[in-house]
């Protein structure tokens, strides 16, 4: 009797152990990946937020609480507003042109022209070369005296004198927007092309038989079908551009004055050139809230539109 009871208990225990092990299994699978994220993302992030409340600097590496001084600076000095404006303006305008040209190209290539694949592949190269290469290339192209851009613009009578594209406030912003837009077009084109190919042809045919015009087909069938992907592409591209420091760092170094200093570059320079880590982190923390907002929008769109299980 005693023996059987012990055995049942033992069995129960081992069964519980087994169940526990199998319920822990999916977490164990996640462990290696999350360990890396923990070291390189979570810890630095928390530490960065904490640093924003101190006057930590690269030279004097101590955490001394300085009573929100860093945040007060951000909300009172106009320079910070300019930096945030630069980021938002440059990124949004760039994403707009990426979407526009990406969509135009996707529609053109999708309309059964010969050489569809070759066009797509050729364009795609633009997107895989390193950002640093893109930046050096446009640095050469935008050169005031010998750059091809000024030459071609003069030829087309779009400008009447050579513009110092990287040396004046608005031209520098435009140059950056052109660089970013150019870079992102293939990304939009490939995604939108894939989306266009999901539009059911039967639906298009049926609508055409019912007498729908091309424009109506586009407005009431194509657009609703590609909308989710277009939104997704816009969000992904905005996030990627907000993260980019390379282009501004190499091409303009944030200048002239602060005209092309984006938030990312500002944080980087404040930390590593002015050694003001605390101040830089405070800007980063505010920026973090903005990015989290975008990220959640992204999650919402993804979870609504993918077939994957959540």
């Amino acid at each position: 009797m005693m023996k059987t009871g012990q055995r049942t208990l033992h069995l129960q225990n081992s069964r519980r152990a087994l169940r526990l092990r199998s319920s822990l299994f999916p977490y164990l699978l996640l462990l290696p990946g999350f360990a890396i994220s923990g070291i390189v993302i979570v810890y630095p992030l928390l530490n960065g937020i904490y640093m924003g409340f101190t006057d930590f600097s690269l030279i004097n590496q101590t955490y001394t609480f300085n009573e929100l001084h860093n945040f007060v600076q951000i909300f009172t000095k106009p320079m910070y507003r300019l930096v945030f404006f630069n980021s938002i303006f440059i990124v949004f305008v760039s994403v707009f042109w990426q979407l526009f040209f990406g969509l135009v190209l996707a529609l053109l290539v999708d309309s059964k022209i010969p050489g569809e694949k070759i066009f797509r592949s050729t364009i795609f190269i633009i997107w895989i070369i390193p950002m640093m290469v893109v930046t050096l290339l446009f640095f050469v192209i935008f050169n005031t005296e010998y750059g091809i851009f000024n030459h071609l613009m003069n030829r087309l009578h779009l400008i009447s004198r050579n513009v110092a594209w990287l040396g004046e406030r608005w031209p520098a912003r435009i140059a950056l927007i052109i660089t970013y837009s150019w870079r992102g077009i293939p990304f939009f084109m490939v995604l939108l092309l894939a989306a266009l190919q999901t539009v059911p042809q039967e639906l298009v045919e049926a609508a055409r038989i019912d007498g729908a015009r091309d424009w109506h087909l586009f407005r009431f069938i194509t657009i609703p079908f590609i909308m989710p992907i277009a939104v997704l592409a816009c969000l992904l591209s905005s996030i990627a551009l907000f993260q980019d420091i390379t282009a501004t760092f190499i091409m303009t170094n944030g200048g002239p004055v602060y005209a092309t200093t984006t938030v990312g570059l500002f944080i980087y320079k404040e930390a590593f050139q002015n050694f003001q880590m605390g101040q830089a982190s405070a800007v980063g923390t505010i920026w973090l809230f903005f990015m989290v907002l975008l990220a959640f929008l992204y999650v919402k769109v993804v979870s609504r539109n993918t077939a994957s299980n959540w």
Partner: protein
Amino acid sequence: MNKKRQKTILTFCLTLIIVAVLIFPIFWMVKISLTPKAELFTKPPRLTVSKLNYASYLDIFTQQKFLRYYLNSIIVAGMTVLICSLTSIFSAYSFSRFEYRGKRLLMIFSLTSQMFPAALLILTLYIFYQRNGLINTYFGIALAHSSFALPLSIWIIKSYFDTIPRELEDSAKIDGIGKMRTLSAIIIPLSTPGIIAATIYIFIFSWNDFIFGLTLATKDAYRILAPGITLTFLGQFEYLWSEMMAASILISLPEVLAFLFLQKYFVKGLTAGAVKQ
């Protein structure tokens, strides 16, 4: 019929013009890299070269520094691919096949972690690395790359796992085959295209990186290509155009070649999770 044909020709020409304009900067990069010094700075700039000049390529190849950067980039990208693909296969398996408490939250975290401001992370990462001897190590740079490449590769692999029918696993389960064995013997072999696509994007992320490589390595011996080349030409951007463009082409070449041979994986990776299949 005739009208339809006209329309096709018109569309084709329009596409050709747009593509030509878009690809022009790439053509220009190649052209500048092959232009002799004397013809570089002329007014107006010439669209053709009188004689192809390979001096800038030779110049780069004979520089010890450049070969060092190339090797460093290969090592770092290799390590990143290794770390990332291994860990993301496990994570993707977990996300794709199991139901558990907190899964949604963990998925959201892994999806959004690449969106936290990189500039903010670099600051504290730099201090963390400095205190733990990870500055100027290949592993340190690869680790930073991994954390940013991970979400993408997890997502690509997961969405591929999702497409594999579960019947196979169910029968494996009945036969008493364990979960790890199911992963290695059934799921992974069937998912090679997805894993290749993920690997490609991990490699590209690491190879293209500028800012992590710039910050986390202060010695030339550990610099990867993008920051290495940029620092080499820093202050000479205005003069050494041919060399700059030649170096740029040599950095991009492995990726362009990979793309030409592995095209379908590139598109697969890009549309993974974004487009319903």
